[in-house]
């Protein structure tokens, strides 16, 4: 399998050199192969979001290296990385532009990372494509192309954000607790959609979650972060046979410290 993402010895320290110095990432080494769907868990402060922000480019890299498809992207800004990396945020409001319509948002995502010119933003032939794409969400959005996104529910918006992230096939998709702000039923729908889109397009994905069950159920590889390091990294059969109690046990063995189930679930 070709390697898509390679992270080498990544360190991130907040407020470096002050009394509040916080070493959030302490040397992360990871390799992702094409088609890997990695779920990431860890308690608050373990470094999940920092890791994601470092890959996306919203946080400048202090130490270490990130290589995507053989290209060193360590120093590239967010907008450059957007050519190859798409992202779904935790807050449904974050992933879409509220005052733009559904089709305008989709059109924006179609041009992710490409040059934008003076051609019409929403093209006629795109509209058909958008309709087809929206229809597969089963949310009756295919006839609301001209509705402002702000008028849709959180679940609908998150579904559209997912679609936007995959409209232009990314080399890597980052999902940052993207179901955490949704009600349980919508959360399931969005997760199923996530799995469908990822498997259909054979995407390489990083999914941060607070939900252990989800982390175990979805994806082919599970990583647990603890205090800025990779504590557990399971793939293949080991991952398939995993249960929540087994994961807890593993974690205790690796870290050597006691861990309450709630500490992760409720953190």
């Amino acid at each position, binding site marked *: 399998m070709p390697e898509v993402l390679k992270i080498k010895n990544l360190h991130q320290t907040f407020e470096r050199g002050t009394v509040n110095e916080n070493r959030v990432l302490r040397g992360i080494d990871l390799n992702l192969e094409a088609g890997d769907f990695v779920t990431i868990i860890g308690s608050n402060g373990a470094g*999940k979001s920092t890791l994601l922000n470092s890959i996306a480019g919203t946080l400048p890299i202090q130490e270490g290296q990130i290589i995507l498809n053989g290209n060193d992207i360590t120093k590239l800004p967010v*907008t450059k990385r*957007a050519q190859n990396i798409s992202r779904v945020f935790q807050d449904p409001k974050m992933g879409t532009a509220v005052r733009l319509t559904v089709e*305008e*948002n989709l*059109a*924006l995502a179609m041009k992710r*990372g490409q040059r*934008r010119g*003076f051609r019409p933003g929403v093209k006629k032939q795109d509209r058909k494509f958008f309709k087809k794409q929206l229809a597969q969400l089963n949310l009756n959005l295919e006839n609301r192309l001209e509705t402002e996104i702000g008028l849709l529910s959180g679940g609908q918006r998150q579904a559209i954000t997912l679609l936007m992230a995959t409209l232009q096939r990314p080399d890597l998709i980052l999902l940052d607790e993207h179901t955490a702000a949704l009600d349980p039923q919508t959360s399931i729908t969005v997760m199923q959609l996530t799995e469908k889109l990822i498997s259909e397009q054979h995407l390489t994905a990083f999914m941060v979650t607070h939900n252990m069950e989800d982390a175990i159920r979805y994806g082919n590889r599970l990583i647990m972060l603890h205090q800025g390091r990779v504590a557990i990294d399971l793939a293949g059969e080991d991952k398939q046979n995993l249960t929540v109690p087994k994961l807890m046990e593993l974690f205790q063995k690796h870290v050597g410290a006691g861990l309450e189930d709630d500490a992760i679930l409720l953190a």
Partner: protein
Amino acid sequence: MAIGVYLTFRILDLADMTAEGSFPLGGAIATMCIIKGINPILATGAAFIGGLIAGLVTGILNTKLRIPSLLAGIITMTGLYSITSRVMQNAANVSLLGKDTVFTIAQNWGLSRNNAVIAMGLIIALLVIFLLVVFFKTEIGLAMRATGDNPQMSAANGIKTQGMKILGYMISNGCIALSGGLLSQNNGFADLNSGVGTLVIGLASIIIAEVLLRNLSIGGRLLTLVLGAIIYRLILALVFQMNVEPSDAKLASALVLVVCLTLPNFHLPHNLKGGKKDAGSTKN
């Protein structure tokens, strides 16, 4: 002018003080060009270009040098005062008496003076609105609107948000300078101090327009701005009917703006401020 203010205030979600400087600048450029014998339409175009440059300066101050938008606008506005003064060759006032203006061109079509102003004003306003609507539907236009709406999402989709902001500042100030150029031609003189209060007038027009008609397409919104500007003028005229001293005029218009800004909050508390979202991107 309201349209120009609208661009930064609503589309980019910034209050741009440059308006107060680019408005008289536009007036000065148009006036001086006409005096030099340049065609009034070209002179008005020159005013627009002057505004573009003023916007470019504020845009660069705001994005590249990371000066907060309000301050960046004030800085440019202050600097522009001297530049406008230079353009007017250090006079506080330059008369256009007896010169051709865009309005006299319309008068040559056989219209009366008042009708000429209305006709020319409408033609230019509609032209500007038409161009803007077309622009906002292009790929770049969409990207600009998204930038004002959700900068983080825009960046994640590969939009260069800084460039979009600069472009927004430019177009916005271009429109404001254009209106400054038109007003000086209508008044028959350019005035160094005509910029004071422009931002207030622009904002008032926007708010009135939004209170009257909401949830419109972008073209509709720009059109209602013209209406808003006219209504604001009418309200002011009404206030002046009540024997307000000329020196109190600014106070009166400020009060009208306060009323316009607060009234809608009683009916629709969520709508007008557009919800400042806290990005919280460094959480872990």
